[in-house]
């Protein structure tokens, strides 16, 4: 495999390109950039169960968003085939902290010791994958948006609700990093 450029793509290129997704979606069809609404659309499609939150017309309202989601998957497949991420150069401080938590293989995009089928029913695997995923789905639905919907779209639009949400993202993220991961990973 050849590498098209050195990794990672620098923040000053990646950030503005991600920011341009916002006007691209608006100009294309006045759609708000966001990913988490797809969970709601998929619930409406698969198991609405008479719940009011899932009674919307998911095909009409969410069709574009699901196409966008499928694109993310396809883009990730192509990117990892054509120009797979190289070994990470992780900050020394984080490296030391993760070693201390018992993670030794710091290659790849996720720690192999945790994010593997074989780890799914170990404590660290179950909490990281199953519980973590559940909290992502519950939290984004409750907050009405994720990183793209609140942190990027909402903050760019100067919405106070999104600022509150982002404060919550970091409160939860810090609690997860400093309180829960040390118990779970060790």
């Amino acid at each position, binding site marked *: 495999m050849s590498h098209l450029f050195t990794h990672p*793509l620098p923040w000053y290129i990646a950030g503005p390109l991600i920011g341009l997704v916002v006007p691209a979606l608006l100009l294309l069809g006045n759609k708000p950039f966001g990913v988490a609404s797809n969970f709601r659309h998929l619930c409406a499609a698969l198991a609405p169960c008479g719940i009011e939150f899932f009674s919307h017309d998911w095909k009409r309202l969410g069709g574009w968003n699901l196409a966008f989601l499928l694109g993310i*998957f396809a883009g990730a497949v192509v990117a990892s085939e054509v120009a797979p991420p190289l070994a990470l150069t992780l900050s020394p401080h984080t490296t030391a902290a993760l070693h201390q938590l018992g993670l030794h293989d710091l290659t790849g*995009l*996720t720690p192999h010791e945790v994010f593997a089928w074989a780890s799914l029913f170990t404590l660290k695997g179950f909490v990281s994958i199953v519980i973590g995923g559940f909290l992502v789905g519950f*939290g984004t639905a409750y907050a009405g948006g994720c990183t793209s919907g609140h942190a990027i779209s909402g903050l760019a639009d100067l919405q106070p609700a999104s600022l509150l949400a982002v404060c*919550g993202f970091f*409160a939860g993220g810090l609690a*997860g990093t400093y309180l829960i991961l040390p118990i779970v990973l060790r």
Partner: protein
Amino acid sequence: MTLLPYFLIGSAFGVILVEAEVVSWFRIQEMFRFDAFHMYGIIGTAVLTAAISLLTIKRLGVRGPDGEPLGFTPKVLGTGARYLAGGTVFGLGWALTGACPGPLVALVGAGTPVMLVAFLSALGGTWTYGRLRPKLPH
């Protein structure tokens, strides 16, 4: 309405998420440990670029196909409880999985297939929220 353009923009987004290592569990750890500027640089410049684009669109008075002005519907603030509480729950999940919703899906395609379980679990989380919604403070 054709869906192909949305698929293509999503693909570009997916490529960037992988190439800039936004999908990396390790980069998210660096971010929550305040050990690297990378993720802050990405989110910061993304917000700035989006804000300038939104301002430009408003200034020019660009309108959509139905004649409506382009832009976001403002979020209802209310007590703000749902944003703080929901945001905190999501933040916990973000730290544990190392992925927000976009990267969660990207990782399934980029060599961590077990993330499919996290994705299905996220659907379960959203479904549970939908079920409990009438009882939760908003």
